[in-house]
């Protein structure tokens, strides 16, 4: 039997920092194979991503961990815990908690692509967390690999030596053993003692319909056992541990998790809101006096209304959101009503990706047809009476007479790009009201640009635009900054003279005219012709600033209908009715779902 001291010395907790598609999952699969944690036969591609949506998008949305045993060249067997991290900026808080559970990180860079902005920001997070970084160049088998220049980029970024960089092809398996050896030799073992009051950091939690909440933890001090009464720091609630275990290919119950270990526990917690990522668990009978990390509540930054297309689906929508909520501590929602859309919910998301995921899951997993309104940020509205209110729905903006000024949230953005696209990017930044901060060169061909942007300017198609003006080479990352005063006004859309509250937006005053014009034109394209004329207007206050008209349909009639046509025509008419059902009736006008997101589909040229 190993003594506690020896045991902790043979643990290595690490994560992988990589940009999407740079091969994180393939590298993880190879390590699992090499350590016989999984045989190649049972290897479903990319074990770490287990949701359909994640696979399609190539994004690891929820982190997991997996444990492997590795017999190193020094003859000793090590326990390696690979903690997976979400790769997208929307989930940067979760990334930081995952990093906090590790002592080291593999920095994986695609040999053909080089370092991307996202990788860089996660790398800086890792360095802040004092993780030991092992640089890895992956995909060295690619004909387009540029090992030398990527090597230079890495050296300039983390200041390592050339011989510290591992050359790997996760595809062919080259360099896997060297990587495992480096993990064992370079990453320090966890510190901590079983004798101290127990402390474990929650780095993830998921809701399982059969087991309740499964909480993923890294134990820092002391030990946890089945039947222990535990306490959550954040809400001071006590629960009993029903099951505790380690994470192999499946959950594997054990008796004890000790300082240094990574594993899971199942307690009586009902949903993930009791077990928030970043919170600390301790034992009720001998509690630690402080948490592992200072807890930070994450606040949604992007808001959008979600409405059922058919008003009778409202209850079903509520139930589906309730279910999603069980597993997503960052989703917020509360009922709201719109004159145009009826009953629905105002939902808050971490970012646009998070929003899209929730929308897709509602439609795909819960099969509800939904309309979501144009996403917006939270504005600080300073009233003339000195009060400040937060507005998460443009249609709720008070009358202009009552408003002293408005503030909007800004972000600090980092854009990595080959030097030839600097001009294009400056132009895009200007167009999006960006403030240039500074630039630094990663090497002679790549530059790291810093800006501040109003968040509202990047939630619409900014990323797509950036990609298209840089031929896909520029990458982008951001973090939330502070609120700043802006000259903002509310732009309303009127359909046949009636304001359509769900289409109201708050825009910068200099952009109102252009936006109104483009929005009207886009709506004209999206609203099908009806039996009467549909007038679309954009208005600021009582002033109409743009107008477009969907001309009335004049003729739609089949010339003949005889004995052989009756059944066919009936079915055709019924199908037409079904199609109309998917549209939202606003007054007398039928408006298709896409129209409510018209702003998002306006291209930059406004055509």
């Amino acid at each position, binding site marked *: 039997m190993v003594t506690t001291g020896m045991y902790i010395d043979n643990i290595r907790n690490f994560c992988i920092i990589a940009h999407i598609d740079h091969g994180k999952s393939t590298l993880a699969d190879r390590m699992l194979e090499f350590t016989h944690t999984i045989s190649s036969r049972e290897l479903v591609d990319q074990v770490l991503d287990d949701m359909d949506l994640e696979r399609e998008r190539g994004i690891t949305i929820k982190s997991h961990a997996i444990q492997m045993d590795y017999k190193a060249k020094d003859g000793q067997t090590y326990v390696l815990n690979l903690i997976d991290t979400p790769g997208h900026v929307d989930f940067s808080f979760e990334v930081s908690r995952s990093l906090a559970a590790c002592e080291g990180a593999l920095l994986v860079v695609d040999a053909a692509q080089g370092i991307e902005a996202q990788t860089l920001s996660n790398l800086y997070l890792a360095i802040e967390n004092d993780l030991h970084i092992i640089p890895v160049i992956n995909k060295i088998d690619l004909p387009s690999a540029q090992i030398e220049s990527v090597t230079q980029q890495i050296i300039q970024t983390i200041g390592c030596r050339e011989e510290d960089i591992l050359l790997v092809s996760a595809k062919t398996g080259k360099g896997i053993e060297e990587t495992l050896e480096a993990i064992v030799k370079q990453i320090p073992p966890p510190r901590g003692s079983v004798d101290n009051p127990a402390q474990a950091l929650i780095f993830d939690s998921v809701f399982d319909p059969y087991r309740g909440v499964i909480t993923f933890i890294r134990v820092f001090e002391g030990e946890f056992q089945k039947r222990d009464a535990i306490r959550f720091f954040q809400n001071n609630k006590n629960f009993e541990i029903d099951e505790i275990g380690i994470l192999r290919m499946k959950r594997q119950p054990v008796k004890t998790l000790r300082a240094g270990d990574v594993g899971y526990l199942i307690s009586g917690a009902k949903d993930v809101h009791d077990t928030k990522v970043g919170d600390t668990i301790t034992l009720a009978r001998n509690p630690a006096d402080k948490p592992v990390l200072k807890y930070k509540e994450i606040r949604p930054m992007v808001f959008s209304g979600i409405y059922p297309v058919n008003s009778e689906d409202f209850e079903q929508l509520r139930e589906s959101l309730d279910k999603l909520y069980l597993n997503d501590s960052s989703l917020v929602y509360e009922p709201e009503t719109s004159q145009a859309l009826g009953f629905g919910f105002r939902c808050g998301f971490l970012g646009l990706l998070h929003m899209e995921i929730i929308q897709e899951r509602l439609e795909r997993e819960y099969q509800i047809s939904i309309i979501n309104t144009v996403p917006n940020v939270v504005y600080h509205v300073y009233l003339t009476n000195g009060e400040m209110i937060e507005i998460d729905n443009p249609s709720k903006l008070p009358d202009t007479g009552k408003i002293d000024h408005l503030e909007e949230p800004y972000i600090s953005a980092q854009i990595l790009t080959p030097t030839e696209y600097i001009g294009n990017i400056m132009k895009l930044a200007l167009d999006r009201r960006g403030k240039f901060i500074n630039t630094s060169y990663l090497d002679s061909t790549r530059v790291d640009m810093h800006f501040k942007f109003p968040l509202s300017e990047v939630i619409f198609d900014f990323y797509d635009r950036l990609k298209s003006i840089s031929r896909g080479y520029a990458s982008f990352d951001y973090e939330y900054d502070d609120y700043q005063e802006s000259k903002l006004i509310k732009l309303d859309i009127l359909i046949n003279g009636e304001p359509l509250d769900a289409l109201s937006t708050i825009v910068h005053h200099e952009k109102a005219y252009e936006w109104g014009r483009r929005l009207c034109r886009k709506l004209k394209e999206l609203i099908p012709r009806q*039996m*009467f004329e549909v007038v679309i207007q954009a208005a600021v206050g009582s002033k109409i600033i743009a107008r477009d008209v969907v001309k009335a*349909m*004049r*003729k*739609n*009639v*089949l*010339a*003949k*209908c*005889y*004995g*052989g046509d*009756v*059944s066919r*025509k*009936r079915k055709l*008419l*019924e199908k*037409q*009715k*079904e199609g*109309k059902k998917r549209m939202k009736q606003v007054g*007398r006008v039928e408006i298709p779902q896409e129209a409510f997101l018209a702003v998002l589909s306006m291209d930059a040229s406004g055509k």
Partner: protein
Amino acid sequence: MSVSFLPGLYIHIPFCDTKCGYCDFYSVTDDSAQPEFIGALCTEIRLAAGDHAFRRPVDTIYFGGGTPSLLKAAEIEKILLAVFDSYTITADCEITLETNPGTVDYLKLYSFKKAGINRLSIGIQSFSDEELKFLGRIHDAGQAKNTLKIAERAGFDNVSIDLIYALPGQTLTSWKQSLKTAMEYQPRHISAYNLIFEPGTPFFRQLQHGKMHPLPEDLEVGFFNFTKDFLNEAGYDHYEISNYAAGPKYLSRHNYKYWNHVEYRGFGPSAHSFIDKRRFSNVRSVKHYIEKIRSGANVVDFEESLSRQQIMFEHVYLHLRTQQGVHLPGFRARFHKDFKRIYAPLINQLLDNRLAVFSNFYFKFTRKGMLLSDEILPEFSAV
């Protein structure tokens, strides 16, 4: 021959000399199977009579196609004999034969008349050579006129003609010319169709490939309105979206059965029947049709039983194609429901927009509503 609620018979003759690019009726140009076909058709008619599906007398028989006028008068006579043997036929039965110019001469028409045909529906389509060529017809304007002349000489009083308008590139002037020419022959009935690009036709494919373009909507509306005004002026009643009659005596009693949701029995390949809430149709292929009849197999390959909701929807949408519209007491008698009440919000919307009106005991489309009928009708469905 006025509208009646007795059942009608439809007989499909699926042979044509050539296929026209716009037509989606089932037909073949190979007539080698024609003699066997006549035999099979008579067998189907005689067998159907045995199933007692409808025992009420029949007051219309309609030979459609295809080109039924390609048959010899003796063959028509043979088919009619099978019909008369199997069904009770009223004394004033309307017996229509679809006839195409270029397939008949005086003697043939005269023999058709002798065989019992008392109404001709002639596929004139246009009196412009250029347009006839575009449509892929086998006849020219001269043959069209001649057919009308000999029909009169052969003793046909009840003559209907088909015309097509809104052809790509067609002008109102040329359409007006065709209508004027038609007036010289005083047909009792005119079916005037806006060209439709029916799926599965060569015209439809050309449309999809961008090689053919329909007229702009405003122009089509112009053609429709012009036709209606012109023919009203000439004394014709516009009694259905595409049909005009010189007085109630001359509307198509057979076709009116479809719009009045009256029962009909169809014989021949692809023919549809509607009997006792059931609609069914025969196999399309002539070859399979003959084989099945010969082997005693069932020739029906589509069948549906209509739910009450479907019957009601069909009742409404078919009646609204006619100028008369939905007869309110008739609706109540059939469905035990108040039409005005069950469709109240929709009806109000249509009235407000002048798309429909109440007139005596009827609810009907206005001209504007009729043009938009396929946009409005889905709203009456219970889906």
